[in-house]
């Protein structure tokens, strides 16, 4: 276990705190800037998703010599149609959330864009588990 964070639904003020910690830890490890950026962007989107949609959740980061893996488990409404949710611009966020600047339908597409592997398991009215990986080697190659 590399790091674990609790996230509270609707706690918009603290959006980004888990992501901040993750970034700091990855920087301590001296990972390449490109990897940190991809993990940070994807983890931030995942963190915000929990805040916007779920009651609460846990964000877990694991690291081995192959990849950074982030697992986000939440207790919440779940996603009825994952394929639809993956589409750019599709959002079920209520208007007040959009007024805060969130819920523009970019979250999941952005996570996909910034990760090398991604998986969503969801059960309606139970919750969602999102996992994504950013490969260490491949990204490092891309950077150069």
């Amino acid at each position, binding site marked *: 276990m590399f790091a674990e964070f609790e996230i509270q639904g609707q706690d918009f003020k603290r959006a980004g705190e888990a992501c901040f910690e993750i*970034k700091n830890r990855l920087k301590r490890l*001296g990972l390449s800037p490109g990897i940190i950026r991809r993990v*940070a962007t994807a983890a931030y989107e995942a963190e915000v998703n929990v805040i916007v949609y779920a009651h609460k959740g846990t964000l877990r980061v694991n690291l081995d010599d192959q990849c950074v893996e982030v697992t986000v488990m939440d207790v919440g409404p779940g996603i009825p149609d994952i394929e639809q949710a993956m589409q750019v611009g599709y959002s079920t966020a209520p208007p007040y959330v959009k007024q805060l600047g969130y819920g523009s339908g970019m979250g999941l597409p*952005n996570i996909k864009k910034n990760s090398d592997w991604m998986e969503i398991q969801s059960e309606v009215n139970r919750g969602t588990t999102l996992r994504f990986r950013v490969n260490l080697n491949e990204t490092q190659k891309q950077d150069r």
Partner: protein
Amino acid sequence: MRPKSRTGEEAENPGGVLLTLKEDRCVGCTHCIRVCPTEAIRVRGGKARRTPYRCIDCGECLRVCPWKAWTVETDPSDPVGEKSHAVAVLDPAVFGQFGNRAFPRSILQGFEEIGFSQAREMREGLFLYCRAVGRYLSSGRSAPPAISSDCPAVVQLVQVKFPSLLENLIPVASPFEIMARRLRKKFQGPREPELWYIVPCLAKARAATEARIPDGAYHRAVPILDLYNPLQAWLHGQEKKTFPEPGEIPPVPDLEWAIPGGQSRALGLGASSLLVDGVKEVAEVLELAENGLLEAVPFIEAWSCRGGCLGGSLNVRNPFWARYELSSRMGANDASDWDFPGAGEAGEDGDDYFLEHSLSPRAGMRLDENLQVAMEKLRRIDEVVKKFPGIDCGSCGSPSCLALAEDVVQGYARETDCIRVLKEMKTVEAPTEKGASGKRSFKSKRKRR
């Protein structure tokens, strides 16, 4: 002209300005370790110690030190006596340092009166910088948000703490570097002119002597503070002018450059620029950028000092007062008349003032070169930090409990440097001692209840 009496570290910055600790004045009070944005300072053996590879020259320690123990050491050779063949290049912030007696033209004249062969304002450098940045932004090569790289402390902050944003820094040389190169071209002859940069801060002083483009370096960087007395004396001897003569005040962008927002306006980006000053605030904005939240922002104008370069750590005058003085002079001019005659041909000779080498990250925050070792260290830091009270008191000499845990794991400190840990150990060692206080006696009281 090489600086002497250096503390050993960083002797590679001749002609520049060095941040030095006056050991006899330092009382180990921990003010500086708390404000350092990169946690580069520790108090060890009762004195502040700085780690140069983490230091970004922001000058926060200089500002906060109540004992004036942090000082700058300049080239010990006399700045007034040796400059008869030197050209002084004035940072825009210099014009804010002399109060309402002097208009910019008189200040330039003052530099010549106290012995410089010539004094130049930065206009040509600013103008060419703006044009180069404008071209870069419209070239489609920039990664949004584009971050201004004029403030050298911000550049260093990105190198140390936000390496993933290096590609967002605009790869154009600073106005003062461009200025130096232009002056070298202008004064081509048997004898190269000696260029001195009159600086408002530590970061610019260092950057001036370590240029990132060919011919962009200065022979010396001199804080305005070092020349203030003779200049002010000369200016006081002059008749006080209430109204400027024609041409006495440079165009608004020149003056405004030292004030946050000036750069964006000079670039014509006023409303579409994110403006931030103060090193802590800059770091907060860079965090957001790193999370991918600022991709809709075209341009970030970031200054390490509050109040922009007028807030520079080596300036004389209060930055807000200086801003008032400068602003009151701008009324006479109009931003739209900003042009630099002769700059036209400069851009056409293929000179784009782009940096020769891309900016590289500095391994300031890395725990170890080896990933496995770094992971193990991080795990141990997580364990060690649990032993500390989390009050970040600084008594151990590290800026926070977490930083102490890191220092312990890296072998720079011991757990017993924490006074709480030490106290607990003492009470455990001598449980029978009467009057033993602290956590243990508190616990035993609770047990008795």
